[in-house]
């Protein structure tokens, strides 16, 4: 038995909001692969929970009227990886979440939970960061949209006010159009491990494939929250696709990444792999975009 004080099962999004208002102390449980484990460890023992797991309306991937890719917050990692829309427009996200835990964790883990827990090591977060995802948050006052950069406030704290829950993650068309990306997870094991540092890069190349129109690089575990290497991104904008520029870009990520020493790895190791991963992920993104490195 879990040490749960009370469990309130939401029957709709409105009902979930009402339950959260009625029970201000209660925490949201989605798939539970974090929350239940923390209860078991005693860290959250005796909690009141509002469960949203049964809300099938929050599952699935679609293209909405504004042509955003809309990922319901309760969509499991396994379903994201298998989804044809994801595979067509943002395959890197499917690949990234396919590196979370093991198969059974990917069956229960949700992308909403992965972002709302505010953890920097979340395998979905660096890619969502790198693709300028927008969080759809629903609460007593209605629906609001928050860019992912603003959604993460500090370690383990996200922009969810009392009574609010995240209901979808949107990828705008301007973000995914002609865009190709690659994610690298550095960890000690190939499965059931937490990211030491992760890097997700994507590119839009010019029509002749010779110039970078836009480059974005997102990182997990390079700072207390997922972040972007904006200095390096700015540097490559409009530049030619050359060896020298790729090298300079990857060195330049050190201007922004700011990892810490932890028992998993040292700051020095994390800085080193940040550079190596930036280069490799960029090269693979260029390849996927059909580009060639000239000179």
């Amino acid at each position, binding site marked *: 038995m879990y040490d749960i004080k009370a469990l309130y099962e939401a029957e709709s999004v409105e009902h979930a909001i009402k339950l959260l208002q009625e029970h201000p102390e209660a925490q949201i449980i989605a798939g539970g692969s974090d929350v239940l484990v923390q209860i078991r460890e005693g860290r959250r023992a005796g909690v009141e929970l509002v469960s949203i797991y*049964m809300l099938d309306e929050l599952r699935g991937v679609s293209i909405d009227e504004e042509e955003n890719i809309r990922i319901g917050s309760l969509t499991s990692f396994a379903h994201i990886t298998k989804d044809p829309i994801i595979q067509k427009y943002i395959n890197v996200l499917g690949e990234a979440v396919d590196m979370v*835990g093991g198969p*059974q964790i990917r*069956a229960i883990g949700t992308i909403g939970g992965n972002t709302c827990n505010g953890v920097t090591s979340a395998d979905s977060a660096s890619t969502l960061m790198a693709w300028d995802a927008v969080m759809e948050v629903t609460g007593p006052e209605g629906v609001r949209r928050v860019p992912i950069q603003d959604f993460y406030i500090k370690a383990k704290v996200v922009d969810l006010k009392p009574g609010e829950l995240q209901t979808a993650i949107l990828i705008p068309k301007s973000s995914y159009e002609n865009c190709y990306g690659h994610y690298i997870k550095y960890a000690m094991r190939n499965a059931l491990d937490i990211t030491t540092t992760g890097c997700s890069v994507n590119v839009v190349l010019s029509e002749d494939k010779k110039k970078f129109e836009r480059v974005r690089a997102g990182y997990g575990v390079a700072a207390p929250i997922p972040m972007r290497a904006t200095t390096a991104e700015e540097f490559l904008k409009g530049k030619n696709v050359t060896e020298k520029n790729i090298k300079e870009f990857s060195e330049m990520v050190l201007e922004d990444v700011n990892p810490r020493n932890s028992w998993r790895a040292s700051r020095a190791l994390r800085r080193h792999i940040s550079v190596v991963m930036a280069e490799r992920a960029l090269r693979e993104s260029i390849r996927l975009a059909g580009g060639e490195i000239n000179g």
Partner: protein
Amino acid sequence: MDNQYKVVHCTINGKAVEKVVDVRASLTDMLRNDYRLTSVKKGCEVGECGACTVIIDGEGFNSCIYLAVWAEGKEIWTVEGLISPEGELSDIQEAFVEEGAIQCGFCSPGFIMTSWEILKSGKEYTDDELRKLLSGHLCRCTGYENIFRAVKKTMLRRLGKKKEAEKVNSQGITEYPNPMPFI
């Protein structure tokens, strides 16, 4: 708290059932205590070892980190459901026995349910793919190779590749045509 208990209706191993369940129970608790399905093991109870794996609506889940009340309306399968009406083992279980993929047996029910999910797809997976699909389980006894071999052999047999299946050697890879004779 007033609604500490809830009636949960679901289908377990092909049979529609319902029971009043404590909302604090995990699905492992419900399957073991209320339905006596003790093939569902309690290993770590935090979603790391896979000993508690069951199939829910066609996908493998760690039942220890799944609330029992979420089973409402779901179709659940455990190892008990794989046995034929005459009590015979399934081909997967036979292969586990044959390959010595079971030592203490604690991880076996979980591995077998995941194998069942993998093999029902009818696909032929590469060795790397199979290893990844099996990676959500820990085994402290066998060193995994015997388990991998049992799954690979069953996959090949189901695909009608009997000869290839028999050639899967102790490394889990297909043997060369002329192996070194024993001296």
